[in-house]
C-alpha cells in the first residue's frame, strides 16, 4: 500500500512495482482508491471497478474504486427494488439523501473493505497493491475502520445515526477483518513515498505517526527523485542537488529509522508499460541523453501578471485548486502576500487537513491574517453549538441520544463545510484566499455544496446565511476567482483538466491557471534538467491553447519558496530565453 503527499510519484512507483512483480511470475492486482485516479493513463488500459487485465503484462490486473460509481451502485441497491412500489417523490427523496459527501466516502470505503477484509475477493492474487489517494484523504479512509468499530461499540441505542450506510452493523465483521489485515505486518506493507523535499518529508512523517497510532506499523520509506548534478556550472542543478541533500540531512527521526529505497530522478514521463518496466528494472538511463533542441517558445507571463486584475475589485474570494503537491499553498500565500502589501485586508486560510500555510508564511505581514480550518476543532465547536442550542432543554436521555448521533462520521464533514462557507462569505468584506484541499477532497466538498444547496431550498429557516449564499457565490465569477495550479507534466495537467471539467459541470468557471515549478523557465543547462524542461513545452502549450483563459508560469525555485522573500521570488518575471 502506497501513501504520500500528492505528486510524489505514488502511482508511478506502485505501477512499476506491479509490472515488475507480474513479470516475475506473480499474479498481481493493482487498485486505485483515488477519486481522481489516473491508473488508466499510466497503464494505458481502460479500467473499471472490477479487476481488468492490463494489456501487454501477463498476470497483472488493475481496477479503480471510483467513489461516484460506488455511491451510484449503493443508491441503486437501496432504491432499485422499490422503484415501482413507491411514488416519484419518495424515490427522489431517497436518492437525494444518498447523494451527499458521506455516502461517497462510505460507499468507497465499503469497496475498499471488500478487497481488504474478504479473503475470497483477492484469493486469486499473490499481491494486492493499493495506490492510495493523496494523504489527507487516505488518512480519513484508513482511520474509518478504527473510528467506526469504536462507534458501533459505543452506540447503545442501536437505532441512531450510522450515516447513510444502514447495513453497517452487518458489515462490522468485514470492517474488523479489514483493520486486522491492515495491521498484520505479515500481510500489509505500507510504503511512505516522498520526494527529497522538506514539505513532502514532513508530510510522510505525519503519516508515519498517524498510521503507527492506528496499528499499521510495517512501514518502509521510498525516496523518489534523487538527483545528482552532472556538471558543476549550472546553478539550478546545483541548487536542486543541494536542496535534496539538505532535506535528507534534516529528515525527521521517525523516517530515519525506516528501511529505505531510493529512486533516481528521471527525465521522461512514466506513462505506458515500457517506461514502467524500465523504471522497475533500474534501466532508465536519462543523464546521458542528448539535449534536444526545441523551437523557441514565448513563455507565459509570471504570477505577478495576475495581480492587477485580482486587486481591481478590492474584495472577493481567491481559491487555489489542484492536485496535492503542485504548490497550491505556495501560490496562495504569494498572492495573499502581494494583495496585503498593496494595502488590502487579506485572510489566507486552508481547508487542507495536511496544510502548511504557516510554514509558507513565516513572518507577520501587515493586513494579512493566516488561519486554518482544523477539522477536529471545527467538529468540537459544531458539536458544542448543537448541544447548547438543540440540546439545551432536552432531558438526560434526549441529550444522550443527540450526543450519540453527533459522534457519527458525518458530523466532521458538516462542521468543515460550514467553516468553509463562513470563509467564502468573508469575501464580502475583504480578500479571502483559500488554499483548498487536494482534488479528491475538494470535489467532495463541492459535491456537498450541491447537496446542501438542494437541502437549503427545502429547509430555509434553519440555515446559516453563509451556507445559503455559498454556491451562488462560488458560481459568481466576479466574487470567486478559482486558480488551478498544476505542474508542466502529463499527469498533473490532465488531472487539472478533469478538475476544470468537474467545476464546469457545477457551473463554476476557473479564472486562471498557474503552471508551477517549471525547469524550462529557469534556463538550466544541466542535461537531465534541460531534457525535463524541454518535455514541459508541449504541456505548457496544451494549457495555454486548450485549457486556460489566463495563464501564469512560475519557474522552479533555487531557494525554497518560504517566508516573504521566498514568496517574492515566485512573483518575479520569468527568465526569457
Amino acid at each position, binding site marked *: 500500500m502506497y501513501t504520500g503527499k500528492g505528486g510524489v510519484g505514488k502511482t508511478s512507483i506502485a505501477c512499476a512495482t506491479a509490472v515488475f512483480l507480474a513479470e516475475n511470475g506473480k499474479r498481481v492486482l493493482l487498485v486505485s482508491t483515488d477519486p481522481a485516479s489516473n491508473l488508466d493513463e499510466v497503464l494505458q488500459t481502460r479500467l473499471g471497478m472490477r479487476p481488468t487485465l492490463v494489456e501487454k503484462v501477463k498476470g497483472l490486473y488493475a481496477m479503480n474504486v471510483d467513489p461516484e460509481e460506488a455511491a451510484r451502485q449503493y443508491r441503486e441497491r437501496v432504491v432499485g427494488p422499490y422503484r415501482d412500489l413507491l*411514488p416519484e*417523490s*419518495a424515490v427522489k427523496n431517497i436518492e437525494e439523501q444518498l447523494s451527499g459527501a458521506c455516502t461517497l466516502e462510505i460507499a468507497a470505503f465499503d469497496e475498499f473493505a471488500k478487497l481488504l477484509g474478504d479473503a475470497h475477493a483477492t484469493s486469486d492474487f499473490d499481491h494486492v497493491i493499493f495506490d492510495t489517494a493523496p494523504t489527507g484523504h487516505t488518512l480519513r479512509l484508513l482511520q474509518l475502520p478504527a473510528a467506526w468499530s469504536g462507534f458501533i461499540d459505543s452506540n447503545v441505542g442501536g437505532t441512531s445515526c450510522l450515516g447513510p450506510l*444502514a447495513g453497517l452493523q452487518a458489515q462490522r465483521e468485514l470492517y474488523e477483518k479489514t483493520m486486522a489485515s491492515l495491521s498484520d505486518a505479515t500481510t500489509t506493507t505500507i510504503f511512505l513515498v516522498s520526494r527529497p523535499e522538506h514539505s513532502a518529508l514532513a508530510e510522510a512523517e505525519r503519516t508515519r505517526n498517524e498510521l503507527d497510532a492506528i496499528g499499521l506499523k510495517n512501514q518502509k520509506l521510498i525516496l523518489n527523485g534523487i538527483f545528482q548534478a552532472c556538471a558543476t556550472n549550472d546553478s539550478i542543478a546545483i541548487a536542486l542537488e543541494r536542496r535534496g541533500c539538505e532535506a535528507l540531512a534534516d529528515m525527521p527521526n521517525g523516517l530515519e529509522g525506516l528501511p529505505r529505497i531510493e529512486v533516481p530522478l528521471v527525465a521522461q514521463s512514466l506513462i505506458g508499460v515500457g517506461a514502467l518496466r524500465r523504471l522497475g528494472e533500474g534501466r532508465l538511463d536519462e543523464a546521458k541523453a542528448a539535449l534536444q533542441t526545441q523551437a523557441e517558445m514565448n513563455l507565459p507571463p509570471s504570477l505577478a501578471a495576475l495581480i492587477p486584475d485580482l486587486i481591481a475589485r478590492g474584495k472577493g474570494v481567491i481559491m487555489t485548486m489542484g492536485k496535492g503537491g503542485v504548490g497550491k499553498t505556495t501560490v496562495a500565500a504569494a498572492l495573499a502576500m502581494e494583495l496585503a502589501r498593496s494595502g488590502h485586508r487579506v485572510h489566507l486560510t486552508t481547508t487542507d487537513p495536511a496544510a502548511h500555510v504557516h510554514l509558507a508564511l513565516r513572518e507577520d505581514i501587515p493586513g494579512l491574517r493566516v488561519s486554518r480550518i482544523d477539522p477536529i476543532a471545527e467538529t468540537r465547536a459544531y458539536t458544542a453549538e448543537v448541544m447548547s442550542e438543540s440540546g439545551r432543554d432536552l432531558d438526560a436521555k*434526549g441529550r444522550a441520544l443527540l450526543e450519540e448521533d453527533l459522534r*457519527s462520521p458525518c458530523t466532521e464533514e458538516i462542521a468543515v463545510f460550514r467553516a468553509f462557507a463562513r470563509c467564502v462569505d468573508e469575501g464580502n468584506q475583504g480578500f479571502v484566499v483559500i488554499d483548498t484541499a487536494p482534488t479528491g477532497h475538494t470535489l467532495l466538498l463541492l459535491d456537498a455544496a450541491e447537496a446542501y444547496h438542494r437541502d437549503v431550498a427545502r429547509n430555509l429557516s434553519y440555515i446559516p446565511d453563509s451556507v445559503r449564499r455559498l454556491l451562488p457565490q462560488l458560481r459568481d465569477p466576479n466574487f470567486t476567482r478559482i486558480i488551478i495550479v498544476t505542474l508542466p507534466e502529463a499527469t498533473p495537467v490532465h488531472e487539472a483538466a478533469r478538475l476544470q471539467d468537474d467545476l464546469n459541470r457545477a457551473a463554476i468557471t476557473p479564472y486562471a491557471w498557474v503552471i508551477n515549478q517549471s525547469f524550462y523557465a529557469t534556463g538550466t543547462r544541466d542535461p537531465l534538467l534541460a531534457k525535463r524542461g524541454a518535455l514541459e513545452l508541449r504541456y505548457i502549450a496544451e494549457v495555454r491553447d486548450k485549457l486556460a483563459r489566463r495563464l501564469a508560469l512560475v519557474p522552479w525555485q533555487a531557494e525554497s519558496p518560504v517566508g516573504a522573500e521566498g514568496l517574492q521570488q515566485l512573483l518575479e518575471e520569468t527568465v526569457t530565453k
Partner: protein
Amino acid sequence: MITIQVFDPAMCCSTGVCGPSVDPALPRFAADLEWLKSKNVKVERFNLAQEVGAFTSNPIVKVTLNAQGTKCLPLILAEGMIVSQGTYPTREVLAAAAAVSYEPGPTIKRVKEQSPELVSISGPTKVNL
C-alpha cells in the same frame, strides 16, 4: 403492549444532526420516543433512506405514500392506525395514542430574544425556584 411506528422521510439519522443544521423538532421527538419506551411502549422507527421495505410492506403506509407522496411523512401509526402525518406530533399526542399518562417533557417554543425565525427548544417552566 401498544406499538407505535414512526415512518420518517429519507434522512441521515434520527436526530437530524447530519443535515446542514439541526431541526430542533427532531432531537425533541427522538427524546419523546425514548420516554415512551421507558413507559413500556413498543416503538419502531423506519427511515425511508435506509429501510425502504418497511414502507412498502405496510399496506396503510404504502397506500398513503402513493396517494399523497412524501408530504405525508413523517407518518406515525399506533397499533397500525394513523395517529398523525406530515409532522412530528407532541409528546401529549404520543402519550394519548400510546395510552400512557402524559408527563410534560421538552416542548418547542419561539425564542424571541434570538432571531425571530429561529425555533428553539425549551423545557417546562420551573415553578418551584
